[in-house]
């Protein structure tokens, strides 16, 4: 697959995404700057598209970084507890401050995502049995445990339905003024691109990296901080989007191999295409209502992941 083909697909899908919704907007309506349609377009449709693009790029790149650092194809924010840790952080911030501000939530969520992922990577680094299948199994269990801790506090504080609804993972509530945090992921993605070669080398292991004169710890920490920034911004603005960081890099790696410099652009664009498709499906299937995007992503994503698991074992090794 060529990059320009993916880009064209992304552009077409973006266009479709802009013109689907409960209120019918035709391109001709946009000629009039003061029309109601134009207002909706600017307040709701455009921010939504931007959010999808940023989340799609961010989650896919985060997954890619984690996979190259851990040298395991099946490690991703979903399978290493990152998203669950970020969720826990938000909840703790809500318990800690009576009137929690957005900044406090961001800080807590970031700190927890970082610590949670770091902890898992540390464990992974030293665990005896590094089977490609066993690691995500443990990772998912680890994530479940973090969420059961979240449940414990939420249950005590009567916040259960509250958190489970606003962490659904949906672009429905994305309107101007509520998604701008996502822009923080742009510098993170750019940094990821600049560090791509170093991640590849660090993924070969500490000794190997040292041999090539690379500060392993430093690169590892940069990688995890980038992942935590991306995960936090996405979880706080959109909610939990499972599997994205798992599937997109794996598909790209299937046809392009594992040289990060080459695969990052593809991974980013494919992430956009995948997320746009899922979002559009969610919006048309019970039109004029919407299915949250995390459900469509989880359904399509888990099916693709299952296929990869069953058929792609030889490749994953």
């Amino acid at each position, binding site marked *: 697959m060529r990059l320009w083909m993916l880009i064209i697909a992304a552009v077409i899908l973006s266009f479709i995404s802009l013109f689907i919704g409960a209120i019918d907007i035709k391109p001709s309506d946009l000629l009039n700057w003061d029309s109601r349609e134009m207002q909706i377009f600017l307040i709701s449709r455009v921010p939504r598209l931007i959010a999808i693009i940023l989340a799609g790029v961010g989650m896919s790149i985060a997954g890619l970084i984690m996979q190259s650092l851990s040298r395991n194809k099946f490690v991703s924010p979903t399978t290493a507890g990152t998203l669950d840790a970020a969720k826990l952080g938000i909840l703790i911030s809500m318990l800690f401050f009576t009137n929690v501000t957005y900044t406090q939530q961001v800080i807590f969520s970031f700190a927890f995502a970082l610590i949670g992922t770091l902890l898992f990577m540390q464990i992974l680094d030293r665990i005896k049995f590094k089977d490609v*299948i066993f690691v995500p199994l443990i990772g998912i269990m*680890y994530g479940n445990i*973090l969420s059961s801790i979240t449940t414990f506090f939420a249950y005590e504080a009567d916040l*259960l339905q509250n958190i489970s609804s606003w962490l659904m993972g949906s672009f429905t509530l994305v309107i101007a003024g509520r998604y701008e945090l996502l822009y923080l992921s742009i510098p993170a993605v750019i940094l990821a691109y600049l560090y791509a070669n170093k991640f590849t080398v660090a993924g070969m292991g500490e000794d190997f990296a040292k041999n090539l004169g690379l500060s392993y710890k430093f690169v590892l920490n940069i990688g995890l901080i980038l992942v935590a920034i991306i995960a936090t911004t996405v979880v706080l603005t959109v909610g939990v989007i499972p599997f994205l960081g798992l599937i997109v890099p794996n598909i790209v790696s299937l046809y392009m191999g594992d040289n990060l410099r080459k695969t990052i652009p593809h991974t980013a664009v494919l992430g956009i295409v995948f997320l746009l498709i899922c979002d559009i499906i969610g919006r048309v299937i019970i039109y004029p209502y919407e299915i949250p995007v995390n459900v469509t992503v989880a359904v399509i994503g888990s099916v693709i992941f299952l296929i990869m698991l069953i058929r792609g074992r030889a490749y994953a090794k």
Partner: protein
Amino acid sequence: MRNSTKLIILTVIALICILLYGFYDIKGGFDYAFPRRMMRVGAMVITGFAIAYSTVVFQTITHNRILTPSVMGIDSMFEVVQTLIFFFAGSVSIWVVNQYLNFAVSIVAMILFALILYRFLFRADKHPIYLLLLIGMILGTFLGSLVSFLQVLIDPVEYLSLQSRLFASFTNIKVELLYISIGILLLAFAYGYRIMGQLDVMSLGRENAINLGINYDRLVLNVLILSSVLIATSTALVGPITFFGLIVANLSYQFLVTYKHSILILGAGLISVIALVGGQFIVEHIFEMNTTLSVIINFVGGIYFIYLLLKESRAAG
């Protein structure tokens, strides 16, 4: 200290817990309160042994001490069934009000899930067991995300009553369900007793076990299904207590240093009874907390799991 002495000590502590729970502060309403308390004790003993047994044997066949049978995805099946019932029939429908029906539907659904997954997918040499477990877990995530979508759509009052069902509770158990569970469990244990010696051999690993004449693949399949039946029964009776088995099994390994399953399982079962009955006693009478025991168990179990992972990684590092 010899293992038989240790087992006697555990039995004594378990009995003390049961007596304390049965008679403490019972005043006046003996005829009313005592049978009800004993019923709860019965439920706790049954679930305790079911979970202890299934976790120990599950860990033997997976050759791993940090996995729980919950990675088979059976608990998510319980959530799926209950949510579907609440969503489509509502909390006052016969499917909820009639506890037998509810019990039967849940248990059948959970066992069917396990049977379909393992009976038809299982080939130990073709699909290694971790792969199967990961597949089960992903299917669980898949179903879980469908369900979490439905949960957001359910009205808040119904949601609360669904939530209380999804949290394990020992306080509200119908006596007939208890008898049915005992029946199922006795059958399961009868088979479980017969394979005790084979399980000891299983701990030598696949190749050594086959060498010693164990029909390995069939035994693994049987144990997976047996574990599923036990977990399904205890889940349908009191609700899911995911990480409990992890704690009791590992405590048992540490306390009774042996490879013999008869001793390990008995020990784990007694530790379960002590933890559940003693824990319930403390929750009800000492702290007078409004939280359910299972939430605490999941919380403590979660912390313990992370401790085990760290210990594992330290041992290797």
